[in-house]
């Protein structure tokens, strides 16, 4: 009996010690496991999508490494410490966006980069993806909830300024993500349902009025093509037609790794960046995509648990917004590649090739870990 009791106790002891170790270094186990799974899967798909390019693979793996380090570093910072610096970071971010607007370096036909040759080259809009929700969370966590109209108005102003600057770059995808990250904080803070409903209700007649009274024919045409890219098969519609054929031809189980035909014959443009889900769909089928969606769902679920368990209001709002924004990435990207949504430049998180977005996303998860592991009474888990 006694030995048995001992054994139970000792196994509990081991559990606690392991948890303690991870918590000591401020890393959340479930999140880390899911992220590493995604990273491994991403390299697999990318190898196929890039046409077996080791070069690209090594770059992506390096970005992953850098992202994990930055996640780890951010996880060490206490949320309260971060909150203190958020207003300054917001001001710096907006100033950088203005700088990009004024004299930004022109890359890929759109101005998004700050470039000091030999020193640094980065997109201030990526930086804003984390600073934006942190700012609104910082602001609203000092007010009574649900927020008053005045505080909602101030929040919308804080969101609107960087949003407009990024739309002007023009980078519709990123600006929408930033808009979403800011408004999700408002939503998490208990923005009144009747306000949400009345804004949506007011938007409809305004849009209809604009359409009939203020827009030129060419503007209407542009919006119609945007909403229905397949009406423009020589422009953006071409990508959609090809990506639908790629996904559809994958069937339930897919054609097998490296066996996709659509993506390998240059039919599919941007197959390793925004449209990479089409390669996944073609080679691994519905099963592959569902597996990916499951991992995303678990990540989001963990994020929402962290939100619910966060002790400070600031932590709750920030974690909730980051998690929901992550979902927006997933939904908009898969929706657009499968022809459900208009084409805006949103990458598939952790799978699409691209170092900057990888580092930003992992940093956001670093924030989540920080919120979760710096709580006062761990025992409550």
């Amino acid at each position, binding site marked *: 009996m006694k030995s048995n009791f001992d054994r139970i106790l000792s196994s509990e002891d081991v559990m606690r010690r392991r948890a303690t170790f991870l918590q000591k270094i401020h890393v959340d186990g479930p999140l880390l496991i899911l992220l590493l799974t995604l990273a491994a899967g991403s390299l697999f798909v990318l190898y196929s999508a890039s046409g077996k390019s080791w070069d690209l693979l090594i770059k992506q793996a390096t970005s992953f490494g850098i992202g994990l380090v930055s996640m780890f570093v951010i996880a060490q910072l206490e949320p309260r410490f971060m909150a203190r610096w958020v207003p300054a970071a917001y001001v710096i971010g907006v100033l950088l966006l203005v700088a990009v607007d004024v004299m930004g370096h022109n890359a890929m036909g759109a101005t998004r980069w700050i470039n000091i040759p030999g020193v640094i080259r980065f997109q201030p809009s990526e930086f804003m993806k984390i600073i934006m929700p942190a700012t609104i969370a910082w602001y609203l966590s000092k007010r009574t909830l649900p927020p008053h109209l005045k505080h909602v108005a101030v929040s919308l102003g804080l969101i609107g300024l960087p949003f407009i600057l990024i739309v002007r770059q023009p980078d519709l995808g990123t600006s929408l993500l930033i808009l979403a990250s800011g408004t999700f904080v408002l939503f998490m803070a208990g923005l009144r349902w009747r306000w949400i409903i009345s804004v949506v209700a007011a938007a409809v007649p305004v849009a209809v009025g604009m359409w009939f009274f203020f827009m030129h024919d060419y503007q209407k045409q542009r919006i119609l093509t945007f909403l229905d890219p397949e009406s423009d*098969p020589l422009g953006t519609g071409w990508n959609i037609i090809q990506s*639908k054929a790629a996904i559809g031809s994958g069937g339930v189980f897919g054609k097998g790794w490296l066996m996709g035909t659509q993506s390998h014959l240059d*039919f599919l443009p941007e197959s390793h960046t925004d449209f990479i889900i089409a390669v996944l769909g073609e080679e691994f089928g*519905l099963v592959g995509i569902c597996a990916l969606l499951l991992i995303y769902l678990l990540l*989001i679920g963990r994020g929402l648990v962290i939100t619910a368990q966060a002790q400070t209001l600031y932590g709750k709002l920030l974690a909730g917004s980051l998690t*929901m924004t992550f979902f927006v990435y997933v939904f908009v990207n898969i929706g657009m590649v499968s022809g459900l949504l208009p084409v805006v430049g949103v990458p598939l998180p952790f799978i699409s090739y691209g170092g900057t977005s990888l580092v930003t996303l992992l940093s956001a998860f670093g924030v989540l870990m920080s919120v979760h592991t710096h709580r006062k009474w761990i025992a409550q888990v």
Partner: protein
Amino acid sequence: MSQPIRLKDHEKDARLVRSRVVVGAVAVVVLICVLIARLYFLQVIQYEYHSTLSENNRVHVQPIPPSRGLIYDRNGVVIADNRPSFSLSMTRERSGDWTQVLDTIVQVLELTPDDRIIFEKRMKQGRRPFEPVPILFELTEEQIARIAVNQFRLPGVEVVAQLVRHYPQGEHFAHSVGYMGRINEKELKSLDPVNYSGTHHMGKTGIERFYEPELHGQVGYEEVETNARGRVLRVLKRTDPVPGKDIVLSLDIQLQEAAEAALAGRRGAVVALDPSTGEVLAMVSQPSFDPNLFVTGISFKAYSELRDSVDRPLFNRILRGLYPPGSTIKPAVAIAGLDTGVITASTRVFDPGYYMLPNYDHKYRNWNRTGDGWVDLDTAIMRSNDTYFYDLAHKVGIDRLSAYLNKFGIGQKVSLDMFEESPGLMPSRDWKRVTRRQAWFPGETLILGIGQGYMQATPLQLAQATALVANKGKWNRPHLARTVEGQKPVDKNPMPDIVLRDPSDWAKVNHGMQQVMHGARGTARKAAIGAQYRIAGKSGTAQVVAIRQGEKYDRSKVQERHRDHALFVGFAPADSPKIVVAVMIENGESGSGVAAPVVRQVMDAWLLDPQGHLKPEYASNAQPPENAAREE
């Protein structure tokens, strides 16, 4: 009154956020289900469809270029049409090692290394994957046969039939209709990439360029299924292109030919307008060139020959040629004098053969050194008396003169639909201060009065200024397109009509211009001999090189290319003008002697029937010819 103290209720906040987390989780699950449903639809329900498309066959979207609108003259004669032509196109993705295939093409067709360089350049202009790029145009029967025999060595190469622009009238309309050419990289950036995805040529000059959007039309497309070798198996979906709009020009090919014949090989320009509508009836700039050369790519040698020729055939003298208007501007200057009130029709000036400004000793010479004695307005126009107009310009002053001549279109773009028209130059005090950093000198006003000095105008502007006198100040911008797909072109930037305080002033100037042609001492009376209708006209001379004070223009001393340009403007019938003609003959020297007969021939060609009688539609208001010496 004390405010209630608000304490943060942490437990309530936490509950609120937690309820929102639940709402968010539900939304996430629902939307993930939407995505899975969409993928189920694509990958399970539509699996058969997508998998047949993708197994051995491939889906392609092929642009179908619209057929370009045709261009007709006012009587329906075709000026620009589309002719089928065979070209060689190559698809890089299907050619394997495409540079090697290019070598094979060069070898099979026995071409030169220069051609190969051009092919390579054209291949690099390809815009999308699997897009066939045309690299050689106008294949001959023999070339097609050679390609067919060697097809097995030429993967990804095919002979394609396409429509190519053709100008059956050759040189006649090169300066008005213009020509088409291959789209270059700079132009590609400014064009709508979707609408031009199947198009490799665009208008480069003239009507072809100005009405490019109308002539081009809207691209169509085909979604086709091809096998692995690129052969089309079936068409899945087709949207027809919208063909370009046809344009009917106001130009008349017979009048155009008559005007060219009247120039008789001399270098020069002829513009004929209908003053009541602004329609351009003839537009000649000689020498000209064959626009067909440019359509499929002119060889470098042929182009440099055209470009470097001393006769400048590529130079559009009507729109870009800048000349001092000389005495042809005098009718407009006379209108300025009458309307400002500084003269009346009976004001007289004594002409001793020169004019001197008070307190200056510079003599401004009349062309007639002996002087014309007492001169009134009618005589001044008839004799083209410089002294009278020096005095008139001095009295009007530079500011008012500049303003009036601006109203006549000098220094402005006057046309409605002509590409790269030069605005010319109407000097003013401000202009001189800005460009030369100098004050305006009174002497410069004087020479403006006889159309010399800084002033520069195109033959088109001279024609339009004359049309305004003929039409009593009513502005109609000169235009070449009569209708675009049945629609008249709209003037979006109309010029204000010239409204005079006393509209009868128009008739006074008109009468003076008639005296030029029909008066006993009229400078161009020889050109009007035997006319079936009354003509109003004015000659002019544009100096090519300046003549120093006290020196006389001596043709024997002047090189042929430095001789004066001959100018003449006129309209007829004088009482109800149906046609305005402006003529410039390079180095022609005498406006009344050389240019006036050309004007007369063009008017005859328009107003007379083949038997030499006035056409009945122009005869209603016509008066019997009058050559009697009335003044003497």
